[in-house]
């Protein structure tokens, strides 16, 4: 009897403690834990994305009626949650998947965040999302591209960005278009850094290429920490593919372009799969030797006066440079999460999850060139898409698809010539 009353008391105490959390006092801030590489070899990308999220927070938490249909811009905080502000906790996984996993645990159990966001490296998103699945806290994957992050039957993982197979399919449609214009594209080379990101994108491209009757002349996996890539460039030179596709992080992307110049090797076309090729250090590092390099991007600054232009101005005022595609995709995913947090109107994880499932953002509510944001059962955004851009002078220009293009594709690329 005594035992039971103790148990009752404990239960009552537990209810008393947990009640305020689930009822969410109106203006209690909603906490989002963010896991990113803020130091280590991808630190530049992590820091750029961090600045982008800070701009997004400014837009969400303060009034920005000038930003058109962007959700939560015109109002202050989350109107459905009594004007609650979103606060974020940035943590640094240094590019290490096991650190990412530990950080996810810490953010959930100690910092009591209501949602998680991250984690740049696909390998880190892979481990961190498994933690949020275990604890039942929603995880929005900002921009990691590896296919296997979603599709594990997880209930709590969502992803706003296009993924490896979307990109691979885009490249093939582009090749088909180019072939129609008389370009020769029979063989391609796939050069990839060898963690989850590079490996999964490379595999997706290889699979799509097979379907489209394009042969893969050579696959060159390498470590992004390499200090010397000359032997790899010579391997490419030997096979002489029509297009070389690079899935690279920053320092290695720059090193490859410089080494190709040094060894006088220029394929008809180089396509960089975003990431390193979109890093702000890429263009100043290699613009003299990499003219005509193509890249993918779902981000376009647009004309003065547009919402995207204004967002870019805000970002530029903060960092001194233009918003890049990687950071922009993170920002878009964060807006999608914020929109769901608002519709949930509460910090209860199950309600947030239900709101994410019900997400349906239209193109005019987005800053990216997606067809919308809508998640399938695996949590993947099925309306995500991308553009192709090409380096001309000191900037990328949108060249494909034709309906959005600002300039024509130059084929073959000029490189340093």
């Amino acid at each position, binding site marked *: 009897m005594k035992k039971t009353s103790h148990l009752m008391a404990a239960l009552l105490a537990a209810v008393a403690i947990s009640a305020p959390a689930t009822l969410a006092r109106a203006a209690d801030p909603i906490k989002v834990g963010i896991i990113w590489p*803020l*130091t*280590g*070899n991808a*630190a*530049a990308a*992590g*820091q750029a994305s961090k600045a982008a999220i800070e701009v997004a927070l400014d837009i969400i938490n303060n009034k920005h009626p000038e930003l058109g249909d962007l959700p939560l811009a015109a109002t202050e905080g989350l109107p459905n949650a009594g004007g609650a502000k979103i606060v974020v906790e940035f943590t640094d996984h240094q590019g290490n998947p096991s650190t990412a996993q530990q950080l996810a645990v810490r953010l959930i159990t100690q910092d009591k965040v209501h949602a998680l966001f991250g984690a740049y490296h696909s390998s880190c998103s892979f481990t961190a999302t498994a933690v949020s699945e275990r604890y039942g806290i929603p995880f929005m994957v900002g921009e990691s591209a590896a296919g296997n992050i979603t599709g594990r039957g997880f209930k709590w993982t969502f992803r706003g960005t296009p993924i490896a197979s979307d990109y691979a399919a885009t490249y093939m449609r582009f090749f088909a278009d180019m072939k129609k214009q008389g370009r020769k594209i029979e063989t391609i080379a796939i050069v990839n850094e*060898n963690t989850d990101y590079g490996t999964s994108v490379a595999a997706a491209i290889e699979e799509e290429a097979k379907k489209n009757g394009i042969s893969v002349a050579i696959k*060159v*996996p*390498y*470590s992004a*920490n*390499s*200090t*010397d*890539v*000359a*032997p*790899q460039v*010579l*391997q490419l*030179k*030997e096979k002489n593919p029509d297009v070389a596709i690079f899935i690279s992080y*920053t*320092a290695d992307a*720059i*090193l490859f372009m*410089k080494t190709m110049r*040094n*060894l*006088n090797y220029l394929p008809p076309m180089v396509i960089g799969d975003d990431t390193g090729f979109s*890093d*702000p*250090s890429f263009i*100043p*590092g*290699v*613009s*003299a*030797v990499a003219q005509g390099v193509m890249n993918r991007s779902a981000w376009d600054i647009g004309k003065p006066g547009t919402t995207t232009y204004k967002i870019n101005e805000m970002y530029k005022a903060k960092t001194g440079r233009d918003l890049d595609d990687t950071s922009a995709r993170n920002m878009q995913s964060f807006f999608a999460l914020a929109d769901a947090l608002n519709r949930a109107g509460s910090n209860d994880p199950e309600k947030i999850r239900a709101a994410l499932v019900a997400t349906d953002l239209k193109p005019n509510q987005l800053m990216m060139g997606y067809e919308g944001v809508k998640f399938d059962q695996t949590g993947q955004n099925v309306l995500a898409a991308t553009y192709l851009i090409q380096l001309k002078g000191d900037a990328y220009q949108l060249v494909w698809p034709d309906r959005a293009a600002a300039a024509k594709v130059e084929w073959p690329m000029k490189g340093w010539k």
Partner: protein
Amino acid sequence: MLLLQVIVGGLLLGAIYALFSSGLTLIWGMMNFINFAHGEFVMLGMYVALLTVTYLGGGPVLFSLSAAVTLYGIGIIIYLTLIRHVMKGPMLAQILSTFGLALLLRYAAFWIFSANVVSLPQTTLSGIVDVGGILMPMSQLVAGVVAIVLTVGLHLLLTRTNIGSRLLAVAEDRNAAMLMGIRPDRMQALAWGLAAGSAGIAGALMAISYPFSPSVGETFGLTAFVAVTLGGFGSVPGALYAGLIIGLIQALSAYWLGAIYKDIVVYAMFAALLWLRPQGLMGKAS
């Protein structure tokens, strides 16, 4: 032809490995002291080069010299403020002190220079030399030649000059050297200056061809340790041969087997050699 190109590229890279490894081996030879911050000296050399080009302009000669001089100074300051004191402590304290120093330098660089990847301006020492179809980028050719000259110079300094004799005397027997009128502190400060200076100049030379960020020292530090162990602790010519061998093996295995196998090959050969010859190529068996 392509194979010859691979070999030349590997040797040029190996020469730079040799230069920054020789500094590490110097400190070991002089003081039986392991410096885990050596890779960070290379990183600092890269940033000094960048700052020099950005704010003073000038070419490779100026920025290499300024990196060498600045790092020479930093090396001496680190010896006087940190190393001299921890040397009196237990071995573990010595090891961890330079490990801590490495982290301090790396994260100070993060704070000052940010985490962004940077490179020297694209026009720095551009141009490509074509020798019978073998292409050698001017930047790497100059860096390789300068590295070999400096490494040999360092060896001559140690073995053929008065300063070298005094440096070695201190290494041999500190007390006896003191009785001969040599000041060990001054000599060891000089050794730290030379070691850091050579790492600095190696960093400046590498910065011409390699993009870098504050974490770059990690990779180079590891390579330097392998070169020093392979060459034989304390032997400058050993570090030279080992640097060249590592560069060559990396290049050949990356070309034949693929990039992801090159480190496996290098470290497997490293382990095998240590098994057969624990004192390294040029080290003295104890």
